[in-house]
């Protein structure tokens, strides 16, 4: 396969990129100075080599523990549970949360074959035994996100009844993704969170 076809095929494997877009991206890069293209390649290589899941919270980072876990200005008594590491960026954008995070790496979905064992749940249970007083469940407002939230609630009740469990307030678009919500909406959902 030619170098050009090879690159088009790789682009085509990315989410939301069809054949046409793959071709456009490839020919765009071909017109750029080689130095710029190598810079892009280098950035891709670095994330492959250096980024991994934080051993404490599951966030994707090039440091372990990640920046949030190491920041002692953050409140370690509150843990916010999210589906994906990309949700953290959306919450940070709202600027209204200063506790720690826990990344599940997905949500329960029998149809996709994703069960409790496939999520980063054991790590969460381990963390909750320490100094956590409140767990905020920020899974997406979808049926799967809801099922995941109820599952976590039952699990945590078994570990420690003292931990307060809260869920983000409605207002986030149902069926939507935390990732797409704007900062103000997320801030409102946090301040209006209710006990489960």
């Amino acid at each position, binding site marked *: 396969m030619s170098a050009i076809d090879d690159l088009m095929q790789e682009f085509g494997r990315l989410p939301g990129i069809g054949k046409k877009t793959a071709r456009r991206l490839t020919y765009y890069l071909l017109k750029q100075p080689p130095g710029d293209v190598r810079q892009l390649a280098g950035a891709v290589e670095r994330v492959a080599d250096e980024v991994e899941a934080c051993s404490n919270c599951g966030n994707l980072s090039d440091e372990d523990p990640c920046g949030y876990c190491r920041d002692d200005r953050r409140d370690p008594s509150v843990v916010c549970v999210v589906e994906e590491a990309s949700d953290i960026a959306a919450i940070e954008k709202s600027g209204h949360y200063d506790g720690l995070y826990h990344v599940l790496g997905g949500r329960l979905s*029998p149809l996709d074959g994703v069960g409790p064992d496939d999520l980063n749940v054991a790590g969460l249970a381990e963390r909750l035994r320490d100094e956590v007083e409140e767990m905020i469940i920020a899974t997406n407002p979808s049926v799967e996100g809801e099922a995941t939230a109820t599952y976590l609630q039952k699990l945590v009740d078994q570990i420690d009844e003292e931990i307060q469990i809260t869920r983000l307030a409605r207002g986030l678009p149902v*069926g939507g993704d935390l990732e797409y919500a704007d900062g103000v909406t997320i801030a409102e959902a946090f301040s209006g969170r209710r006990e489960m």
Partner: protein
Amino acid sequence: MPIVSTRSVILQTYRYSDTSKILRLMTRDHGPRSAIAKGALRPKSKFGGVLEPFAEGEATMYLKDNRDLHTLSEFELIRDRQRLGVDLPRFTGASLACELVMRLAPEERDDRLYRTLLNALDALLEADQGQVEQVALSAVWRVVRTLGFTPELAACVSCGRVLEEDGARFDFSAGGLVCGHCPRGDSPGRWLEPGELRTLRRLEAGRPLDASLDSGTQPGLLRDFIRYHLAEGTSLRSLEFLDPRAFG
């Protein structure tokens, strides 16, 4: 490009791009179909965030011949079933009913199957807390029957002997019971004690269980029957959840 409008249940959804969702639908008039809902993930989408699993609505779409993916233009919500997410047994039962229909329903109008699916979802939604597992098993058995895979639980599939209250072997591939007098092959199956058989018959017929009946092995029986009798060669993902650990 004909535009059709039909009652539909959303079986599964996944994100397609930054803004679009792909839906697996059970349509009443055309069987299971896939459709793309363009822009559904945008905050101000005309679909208004109702495109969630287990919801029923009036779907309007462009059905394209010889294409696997159709385009959804409208979805007028009739009932959302968001509350099926409140516990794992409800969620698992609903997912399994949807997956069975998605994999095994013919691509044509089937009112009875459509109604059975809706009834299964509603029964799960409305089941009392202590009854969820039982209701889930009955609901999925009902879908299995409606798909045409009714297990033979009254007589031996090999010699025809009527089986009363004795135990018998549930031969999953043969699709029913084999009596103690007939030679047992090496096909997958399990010996059922009289109590287990009574429970299975009640669940399969959709009759309520009384407290004395033990249902501990029932999820496994349903799982193995589906695995060996319906889903030969394919694996249903939701089945892995039908074990006592996730289900209990």
